[in-house]
């Protein structure tokens, strides 16, 4: 399986009046062909910033201070020219936005917006409309009706599905989905997730899901990266993360999923406040909230180390790095 995207040592900083905020700190990961990867974390963990960094479109005043983003072992995205990048977007990597309701031009029919994408990437308009109709069909949308509609004539769930169809329009290698179901009611959430799962099984496209809700994506991803305070703290196959999490923060996240049936006594929230990115502690960023912290954790940050073939974690305690803290 070839690698679709390879991110190395990515750091994103936001210069502010009070100081520099490190929203993303030395993040590395890769997504293979046909693989579906989830990035989970709470608000401010840097997960959305990673998504926008893949497009080199971090919201102002943020900037990518370090790192590289390579697609299919090609050129570093950050070194591409404006025009190169424009052609690259959407044909190779596309995105389903968090507020999909507002991501369509309000004064143009869907058909015209499909044609504009086709025109921008030198695809014939007829082919693009045919492909869009086909995608709409698989998403239980009436192609003719949707194409001739203005965005405001569609419901929120329909717009989200249109947005997913547009993301798949040019058969990209990677689709980044930023909280694709957050703005939807549970019924629409389920249908959107089912559609995405079908697409994933029937094509070789890779997905990168960005979400705060680990339970939502557990059915549609193969691998999960857990982010905390701008760093990846744990990664591994979704099954392992959900059933046997290693990092205390991941354990907290998993324990916070309410069960579908039964009482909520086993459900716990992660105590404390998210780390202040402006003033990160010297040691582990999760120290203040950690239930298994050791003296060493306050002194030096844990390294992100593999614990077996397909998992890695950044925790002194979990990886046994704390051994010999007070040793010779």
């Amino acid at each position, binding site marked *: 399986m070839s690698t679709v995207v390879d991110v190395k040592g990515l750091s994103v900083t936001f210069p502010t009046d009070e100081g520099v905020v490190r929203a993303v700190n030395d993040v590395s990961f890769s997504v293979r062909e046909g693989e579906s990867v989830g990035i989970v974390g709470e608000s401010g963990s840097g997960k959305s910033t990673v998504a926008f960094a893949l497009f080199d479109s971090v919201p102002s005043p943020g900037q990518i201070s370090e790192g590289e983003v390579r697609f299919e072992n090609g050129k570093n995205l950050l070194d591409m020219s404006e025009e190169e*990048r424009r052609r*690259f*977007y959407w044909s190779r990597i596309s995105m389903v936005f968090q*507020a999909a309701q*507002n991501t*369509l031009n*309000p*004064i143009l029919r869907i058909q015209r917006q499909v044609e504009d994408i086709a025109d921008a990437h030198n695809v014939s308009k007829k082919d693009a409309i045919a492909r869009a109709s086909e995608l709409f069909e698989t998403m239980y949308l009436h192609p003719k009706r949707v194409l001739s509609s203005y965005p405001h004539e569609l419901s929120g769930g329909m717009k989200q599905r249109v947005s997913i169809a547009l993301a798949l329009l040019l058969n990209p290698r990677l689709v980044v989905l930023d909280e694709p179901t957050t703005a939807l009611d549970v019924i629409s959430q389920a249908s959107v997730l089912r559609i995405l799962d079908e697409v994933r099984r029937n094509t070789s496209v890779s997905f990168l899901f960005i979400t705060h809700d680990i339970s939502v994506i557990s059915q549609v991803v193969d691998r999960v990266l857990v982010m905390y305070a701008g760093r990846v703290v744990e990664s591994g196959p979704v099954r392992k993360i959900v059933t046997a999490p290693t990092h205390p923060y991941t354990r907290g996240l998993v324990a916070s999923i309410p069960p579908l049936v039964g009482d909520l006594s086993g459900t716990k929230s992660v105590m404390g406040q998210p780390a202040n990115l402006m003033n990160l502690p010297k040691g582990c960023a999760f120290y203040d909230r950690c239930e298994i912290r050791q003296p060493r954790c306050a002194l030096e940050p844990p390294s992100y180390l593999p614990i077996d073939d397909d998992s890695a974690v950044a925790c002194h305690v979990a990886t046994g790095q704390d051994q010999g803290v007070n040793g010779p």
Partner: protein
Amino acid sequence: MNKLIRRVVTSLILIFVVATLTFFLIRLMPGSPYEVLYHQLLMKGMSQQQAADQVRSLLNATPNEPVILQYFQWVVQLFHGSLGNSIAQTGVPVTQLIFNALPWTLVTVTMGLFISFFIGIFLGVISASKRNSWVSGLIDNASSIAHAIPAYVTAVALLYLFNVVWHVFPSSGAYGITVYPGVNLPFILSFMYHMVLPVGTYVLTGLGSWELAMKATTITVTNDDFMMAARLRGLRHSTLMSYLGWNSILPLFTGFMLSLGAMFGGSVFIESTYSFPGIGNLFGAAITSRDYPVMEGCFLLTTTTIIVANVVADLMYSKLDPRIVD
């Protein structure tokens, strides 16, 4: 269609109501042309009866007649398509005065509005795209100042600079004395030459508000999610600009149509300053001499243009913006 007919009927009623109100309002102004003429005739040695008859025949009204009766006469006239005769220019029908003056104002006002609109839009987009640099500050401040100076001050200032100091443009009239009005090149050139200062005044006083409004909507739309999405879709620069442009200009459209109507009223100060023979000048002179029929005619014209512009804006807006459903 049904809706259109309803709009037209309500507009007609509205115009009639406003015209009625102005009919009574202008009679509340101190001084009256009837009194002036009546006393002039008495001074000439006429008997009171003769003078009253003369006033009635000249003005088609009796000085001491109750206002309500004058009003009914005026309404009857109006439905016969007449606005009465001017008092100051004795016997000349008001409709004729208005039709003589209208083309001059229509051309200058429309040109002034379009030019100020386009310059304002252009500057607004520039200011929005360079909003963190000094260029934006310069454009915004210049626009605010131009907008804040009253039209008659701008008019006098331009007149002083370009006529008195530099002798570049003529001080009055709509065309030179050596040309004949009509479709001929010398006349058109002369007209354009004479309209530079009036049109320039409309442009200077108008563009500020367009610039500031356009800057605001452009910045709002630039930060809209759909613009970010459009960029990441790799759309061509020209497509992005058209997305941005149309979404930013749409909110200004109603204001533009209303200005078209309202500028007839605003033309009073500007045309008076340049002795430009348009509606504004006619209106100004009529107010000074309390020429009721001409004032009523001009008010009727201004009211009608504003209301019609409003209806047209409404009807067109639902065609331009799909979100508005009629």
